[in-house]
């Protein structure tokens, strides 16, 4: 029995068990989902350990050999993604317990949450294009529902927008899959890769790639495809915002994009500089546009939403630089941004829980009353800005190093300058929410919420200080997995018989 199917099977089964468990004993839902996400965390660690030895672990569904059957191809890049997904899921589950006390129908929440997790896990381990689409849609539809979970007008509207735009992306992805299938007659990623090497870079090839880039940009929330983000994140319950901003968009948009660009289409900076320049351009546009907009926001969560759009830009720049350091930076950024933004949205949840508002003008002086929240915010914020020795610093550092090594000095300078924007809008929150003079007494954040935040703070600090082992064992191999390019296909086919 391989461990690979567990990644999506476990949350999928839990998703369907939850309604029944909820009938037996209500808190059991929370306990089981938290436990499951923690187990996923353990399995992801095991997965990282396994990929140290074997670059590619392949699982054949129903024991059909590829390309006939569907395969799960688990390499180091998958391992990183799975690792981050499990952590953010775990903290979101932990945080949800008390946060959801004011909602009804909690079992629906956990069911949907488990579906989102299952979908994301599936995306990051699958070796089949259509399978990827299916998981993407499972997760996406579940997330539309979660955004609408509050079922007020605002939430419904946001969810509707999210759904329309998300489906434009999803259906474009489906269309591109169909076109690709018409061209290559296969859906297996490795097999497509083989076929495309024969076909070559025709305009048709570029059109499919363009459609995919379009689809993933919507899913990732890049400017100008981002407009669902600032409505959806604030509307969703905080743990869901945390999950969406922290990891969902990265898996839906960035992971898929990177996997397809590097491993399936086999693009390299050396051969296709135009494409990578487009990535850098989109990244810069996102950083600047969303960063500027974030400065003007007056809502805690909406500001953070714009911040997420802006930060995804850095990841895209990292991939766009396309050399080892750039990709390491991008993957590190996925890690760092996942933890930091997940944490920041959790603090917003904590603030909303205590004060029932997320309007920056109404909030003030929570720092003394909610020290854990305030300090979590500071750590998350500093990591996002890139203050050493927190993990965000190393992410930015590697991106900048990559830019310098690739000869884009201007890009490095611009990236540093633009991170001032990050500092500026995060200080705005710090100023108005946590500093100032307290207006009235508020509730404190309960223990389960605080433990979720502290867990992320500890990770941010530990991974920041111990970035070297993380670099050596997790991020570095992942970057190598991407830079391996079309070797990916060979690995998938040659490791068919391995069973873990």
């Amino acid at each position, binding site marked *: 029995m391989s461990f690979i199917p567990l990644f999506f099977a476990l949350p999928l089964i839990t998703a369907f068990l939850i309604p029944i468990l909820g009938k037996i004993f209500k808190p059991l839902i929370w306990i089981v989902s938290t436990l499951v996400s923690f187990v996923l965390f353990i399995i992801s660690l095991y997965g990282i350990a396994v990929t140290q030895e074997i670059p590619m672990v392949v699982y054949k569904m129903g024991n059909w050999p590829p390309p006939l059957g569907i395969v799960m191809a688990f390499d180091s890049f998958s391992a990183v993604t799975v690792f981050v997904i499990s952590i953010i899921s775990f903290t979101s589950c932990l945080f949800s317990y008390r946060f959801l006390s004011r909602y009804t129908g909690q079992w629906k929440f956990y069911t949907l949450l488990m579906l989102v997790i299952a979908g994301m896990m599936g995306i990051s381990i699958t070796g089949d294009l259509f399978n990827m689409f299916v998981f993407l849609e499972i997760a996406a539809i579940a997330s539309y529902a979660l955004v609408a979970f509050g079922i007020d007008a605002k939430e419904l509207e946001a969810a509707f927008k999210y759904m329309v735009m998300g489906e434009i992306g999803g259906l474009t992805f489906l269309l591109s899959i169909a076109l690709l299938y018409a061209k290559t007659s296969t859906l297996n990623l490795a097999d497509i890769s083989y076929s495309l090497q024969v076909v070559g870079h025709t305009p048709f090839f570029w059109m499919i790639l363009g459609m995919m880039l379009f689809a993933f940009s919507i899913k990732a929330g890049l400017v100008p495809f981002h407009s669902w983000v600032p409505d959806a994140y604030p509307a969703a319950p905080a743990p869901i915002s945390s999950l969406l901003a922290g990891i969902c968009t990265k898996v839906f948009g960035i992971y898929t994009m990177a996997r397809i660009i590097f491993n399936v289409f086999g693009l390299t900076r050396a051969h296709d500089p135009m494409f990578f320049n487009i990535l850098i351009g989109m990244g810069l546009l996102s950083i600047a546009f969303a960063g500027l907009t974030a400065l*003007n926001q007056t809502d805690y969560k909406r500001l953070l939403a714009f911040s997420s759009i802006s930060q995804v830009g850095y990841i895209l720049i990292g991939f766009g630089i396309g050399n080892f350091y750039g990709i390491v930076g991008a993957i590190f950024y996925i890690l760092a941004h996942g933890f930091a933004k997940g944490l920041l949205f959790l603090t917003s949840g904590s603030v909303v829980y205590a004060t029932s508002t997320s309007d920056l003008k109404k909030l003030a002086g929570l720092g003394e009353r909610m020290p854990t929240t305030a300090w979590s915010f500071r750590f998350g914020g500093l990591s996002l800005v890139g203050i050493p020795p927190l993990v965000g610093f190393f992410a930015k550092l590697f991106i900048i190093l990559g830019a310098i090594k690739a000869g884009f000095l201007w890009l490095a300078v611009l990236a540093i300058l633009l991170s001032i924007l990050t500092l500026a809008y995060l200080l705005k929150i710090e100023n108005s929410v946590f500093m100032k003079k307290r207006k009235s007494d508020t509730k404190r954040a309960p223990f389960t919420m605080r433990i979720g935040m502290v867990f992320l703070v500890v990770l941010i600090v530990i991974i920041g200080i111990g970035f070297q082992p993380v670099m050596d064992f997790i991020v570095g191999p992942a970057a190598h997995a991407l830079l391996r390019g079309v070797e990916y296909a060979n690995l998938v086919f040659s490791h068919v018989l391995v069973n873990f």
Partner: protein
Amino acid sequence: MSIELFGFEIAIYYVVILLPVVAGLLGYLIDRLRTEFDFLGFFFTLFFSIKLFIVTRTEVISETIATFAGIDFRIYLDSLAGFIILFNAIFAFLIWMYSLKAMSKKPRERFYYLYVALTLSAANGVVISGNLIPLLIFWNVLVFSLYGILMVGKNDSSFAARKAVTIIGVSDYLMMLGIVILFSKIGSANFPTAPTILLNDPWFITSYLLIMIGAIAKAGAMPLHTWIPESAKVVPASTMAYIPASLDKLIGIYLLVRVSYFIFDISGSMSIRILLMVIGSVTIIAAVGMAMIQKEAMRLLSFHAVSQVGYMVLGIGTGIPIGIAGGLFHMLNHSIYKACLFLSAGSVEHRARTTDLDSLGGLGTKMPITLFTFIISAMAISGVPPLNGFFSKWMIYQGIVAFGKESNLWPIFLVAAMFGSVLTLASFLKISHSLFLGERPKQLNKVKEARFEMVVPSFILALLCIAFGVFAYQIPLRNLIYPALPFKIVETGIWLPTLATILMIVGIIIGVIVFLFGTAMKPRRSRVFIGGEVMDEETARITGPNFYSSVYTIDMLDKTYRFGEGGAFDFFNYLNGAANGFAIVFKDVINRLINALYKYIGTLVRALGSLTSTLHTGELYNYVGWIFLGGIIILLLLVL
């Protein structure tokens, strides 16, 4: 030329550099054994300096230790360097001895000894170096130790220390520039240069002037003197005696002589010589004028420390062998009597707890030895024969007269020098009267003679004053000064100090008789008549400081004095002013520019932000429109 220590052969010239600082450091670290370590350090430095001095009388030590980046780290010890090292060690030892009691239980005492030792090491290093660049390194160590030792003072000594370091530091930079010019012109900074460089190239003149500024700033010539009176108010007398009064003079004038006659040769350049003489004359007159009106003993003495530098510069500037020898001799004499004056005044301060001349008086009977040392050194500085100060001044006068063969300006310099001498005597009459003669205020009745350790150094120095005066030819000139200079000295004036001394002694005996029968120590009491009112005896006391208060009120002069007191001659003030000017420029122009930039960038960013915010209308069809627009752009870019 070397000693054996723990099986290592160590050249003595290393010993005189390393020993003081090592001993000082050990003493600093092991506070309990500080006196022992310091004693060993200073005593053996003295011992080895004497050995070194004896060696340099017969031979010249010239040795290149290492060459690094074209710079020779070179030892050069001739008889000039030898006698400077000897006196460095003598002064350090005497000051150390004096400090034992004077500095005991004072705050930051530990640092004080460390810096005394460091100063000695660095000063020896300066003298031993045979290349201007290592010399500059030691020179800068001196700046550091000067700062440190000035910080050991009263609470506000940090200002004086800052001022000193600013002035010395700026002049050091000028000197560094001069050395760099020299180095780049001749490709070496070794000295003495053979043949000496004539000042006929503008670069050489620039270089000489810059190095000269460094040298006279160290010695304390006007207008680079102002840190000395500033420090006098706040630091202990021993510090004043050690650094500005003796070691700085030795080092500064040493460098001036070196640069003027061993590296360059200024005797061929009339304008440079006149420049030096003008600096000397102005320093003499201006500083002594300032000294006249001081009401505080230390400050008064410190102005004399400046004034006397004028004689040295004047003598060296004459370019006449006898004048140069006189300048060098005056440097030595000055170090001796000025150190003695500071130490004696320090003893008075130690006992009376004040140096304010108004509240002192009549201490002569209480402190007879201090009276003796003070009067002897005061007479020496005023140029009263047969003391040493007279003799060196006499040589300088001879130099000026001989200079008259080459230039018509000589009477001005001669008058300046003699007038300065007269004013010096006048101001010392005032300070001697204020301290030791006249009526004693009641609160000083319990004052006793200073401690043994404090009296002995000043007594030795006073004896040196007499010895160097009476046996001027026999001891200092023949052994110290003449061998140190590279030319033959011809005396023109006739002065037989031994005969003169006999006459003097007769005069003094008469004076003593008068003293014994007279009432010099007992003030004459008479009732003051002021319109029938009876005055308190205390208020009617005549104190020294007002002797020359009429000078202060003379028209013209009073303005100058007020300028002087207000700091108009203070180079530091101008430097400060310039810095303030820069600050204003910076604040008003650059700062505003930056502010404006910051403001406008902020506004721009915020405007852009609000623009992008308003684009988010929340209308779905708009958003979908953006999406498709973006998609079309991507497709166009990729497919075309």
